[in-house]
């Protein structure tokens, strides 16, 4: 799998993303700097977590206006795969590639912990390595992960099977307690309509080997390999 990771000023999970992808796929991603206007031809572009531009103004807002964005849009429009994790998810909503917005956590506090996710859509390019309804463990670490969209958008997301994961308890039930940030419908990650773009708050790249506390994050990258083959 050919991939690339974009680094914005104050991205801070870019190295984790490089390493995570390489550990799972065996191939080193290309590096894209936010000022690059040309990007290599790859299967997957990953927008990593972090605090691009300090999270000032709105999370992801300034990154979404970077010079590299045009080329990323072109890649997405061609049907190329894009995954945005945490800050990357915020960038994707700010770019308009995914609907809705990520608001401040309901607690108003940063939250870092491992959560249970239920795989709601196990057929997408990013999730086919999981079983439908499978409960997986992945860490979250964010201040603004409270997914918001208007009712019509939410209904469309539900109807089109665009909700990739929800926060659930260990029994797989989407409860308020299981939701670390107050997101609507316990949404943890969504797909675009075409299914080539995934945005999610949890960090799969942090959970690719058991020493890190779990390896449930491998499935994301394995899914893309499955899809490409």
């Amino acid at each position, binding site marked *: 799998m050919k991939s690339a990771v974009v680094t914005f*000023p*104050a991205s*801070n*999970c870019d*190295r*984790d993303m490089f*390493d*995570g992808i390489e550990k799972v796929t065996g191939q080193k991603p290309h590096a894209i700097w936010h000022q690059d206007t040309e990007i290599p031809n790859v299967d997957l572009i990953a927008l990593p*977590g*972090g*605090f691009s*531009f*300090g*999270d*000032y103004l709105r999370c992801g807002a300034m990154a979404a206006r970077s010079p590299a964005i045009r080329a990323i849009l072109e890649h997405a429009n061609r049907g190329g795969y894009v995954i945005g994790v945490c800050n990357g998810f915020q960038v994707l909503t700010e770019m308009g590639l995914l609907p809705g917005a990520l608001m401040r956590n309901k607690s108003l*506090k*940063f*939250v*870092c*912990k491992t959560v249970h996710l239920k795989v709601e859509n196990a057929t997408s390019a990013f999730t086919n390595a999981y079983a439908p309804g499978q409960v997986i463990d992945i*860490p979250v*670490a964010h*201040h603004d992960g409270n997914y918001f969209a208007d009712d019509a958008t939410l209904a469309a997301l539900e109807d089109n099977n665009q909700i990739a994961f929800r926060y659930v308890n260990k029994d797989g039930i989407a409860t308020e307690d299981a939701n670390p940030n107050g997101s609507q419908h316990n949404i943890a990650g969504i797909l675009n309509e075409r299914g080539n773009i995934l945005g999610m708050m949890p*960090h799969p*790249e*942090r959970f690719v080997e058991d*020493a*890190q*506390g779990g390896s449930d994050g491998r499935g994301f990258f394995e899914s893309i390999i499955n899809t490409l083959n």
Partner: protein
Amino acid sequence: MTETKWNNNPEITDDLVKEHGLSADERELMNKILGRTPTLTELGIFSVMWSEHCSYKSSKKHLKTLPTKAPWVIHGPGENAGVIDIGDNQAAIFKMESHNHPSYIEPYQGAATGVGGILRDVFTMGARPIANMNALRFGSPDHKKTRHLLSGVVEGIGGYGNCVGVPTVGGETNFHPSYDGNILVNAMAVGLADQDKIFLSAAAGVGNPVIYVGSKTGRDGIHGATMASAEFTEDSEEKRPTVQVGDPFTEKLLIEACIELMSTDMVVAIQDMGAAGLTSSSVEMASGGGVGFTLNLDMVPQREEHMTPYEMMLSESQERMLVVLKPDRVKEAEAIFHKWDLDFAVIGQITDSGNLTLKWQGDVVADIPTQPLADNSPEYDRPWVKTDAPDVINAKNVAAPNDIGAALLKIVGSPNLCSREWIWQQYDHQVMADTIQLPGGDAAVVRVHNTNKALAISTDCTPRYCYADPFEGGKQAVAETWRNVTAVGAQPMAITDCLNFGNPERPDIMGQFVGAIDGLREACTVLDYPVISGNVSLYNETNGTGIHPTPAIGGVGLLQDSSKMVTIAPKNDGEEIILIGETNGHIGCSEYLSVIEGREEGAPPPVDLHLEKKNGDFVRAQIQNGNVKACHDISDGGLFIALAEMTMASGKGMDISLNTGDIPMHAYGFGEDQARYVISTSCENAAAIMENAQKAGVRTEKIGTVGGKTLDVKDTFTISVDELLDAHASWMPNYMSSEV
């Protein structure tokens, strides 16, 4: 210039000198060094350089007695941070520092800039920071400010550390009324570098350019360093000096830009601008290299208009560094900083004058020989009196509680022993993807990226012990970090310290300081665990009431094979539980006495350092040879708390049966005797451990097995794991969400 030209040559009156915190002797020495009276800018420079914070004038004499050397120490105290050899040409670089006073005035920014400052001390040496720790002390939970301070400090540490992308992996938090008017915020940073890429601050090369990089200079925190050296009074709360505001976004860019710069060979010397900003960085670089600096202050990037040289030299604006470059490399370096959108300005060059010469608008506004400024700084031998040793409390004279189980639940859920999850959940403790032991265990463990090695880190101090007996308390603080690092299976390597005390001009406080240093020295010597960096924070008092003496210690150890690491959680039902060490039921100064009896008295548990070493070396060897499933040291709250914590961490119960001899059960279970551990092990390995212990002369006792859903101590109590978890988890979130 205009008619309002700033006056750099006012009459240097007694009042002016006093306002700058200089004594009559210091003033005389200053005049002698200069050979004349100072300009205003010079007076400001002397004032900050000779403040307690920068000059260590009260503590120097005693600090010098600490052991700082070992074959694995590459740089000890004297650099921005200490450096140790961790093999394979790699080095671990670390330091701890206080930001107490600013955090009391503005908890968010005070704590945030504390994290920023300690990170700069580490990456200025060429290290990539890989872990942050924080040691926090707040006043009584009942004090009206505590909630606000705790919430602001934690948010500030998270706000800064999370953004720069360095995991905050651990720390410690205490509540005690002695911190009501003077909290302690001590931040530690650990970094990694290649040994052949370590950068120092001593400048060299006459004619080499001096470069300013980072953020622009504003009027932030002017006199911050002198503030950190003065006692608080009620009205310093009102004075509200200009608070420094941190910009973690810029810090992150600065880290990346500096690492990129240092991957080349252009850097001659580099130094962060910490306390006393441009003054201390330029003086340290010049005096350290035995050279002079000429700086043109008109070139300093400025955020505000009409800044005077005095303000520029004393500003504590954050996220700034000073770099001496090789002469022909300025363009290349500039390109790196521009790529990262950071200010870059050539502000001067190295001279052979030995003086710090400052020019501004065509005038020389200061001209100070740096060597005497740095080296002849005052050194006091302040009078001190030894703290009286308190009486040892005999456990038989402390009544047993009606219900030991209820007492355990109360202690597990008390402010000082309850879960700190509310705090660490606000810190990104996993960014960089190398955190292999999360907060909540004995030591945090982070892997050395792309290797099998890992560093174990712990910060510790038990202020109530230090207050009762500074010497024993000092020993204990060092021993506890050593024990925590050992308990995960690592070899303890070295410590950093952050010595927080009251007003050193009071002989009783100075006695606490001297006592604690004596304890530190003895512990470091016996445990072969040198001090490689640190910081002293004095005058931690409000209205004449000093804090408990708090020599916070940050210990670092090395795991050669990180797969050998253990945690405090037993793995399987049926594992055997073994108690290691001597249990004498030392109840004085214990959490039990404080929480259950409301008494803070008696001698703290003595630390037998040789026993400590013997027991710890034994435990580590057992972990290393794979005999151990889980390990936990015994500290605050004693054996029962250690067992409860292991139970909660694993969700598995335990059946315990204790042979207490003639020690009352409550003293046996809650006593805080030192040098002890609890381990769990498979039945097959238990015999080997017992046999090895016998050979090593280490006291071991099988006390039970893992299993079920309750913590059961025979003939004493049965408590379900859920009940323990509930008591443990609820205090802090409830406290923080309850009304003010």
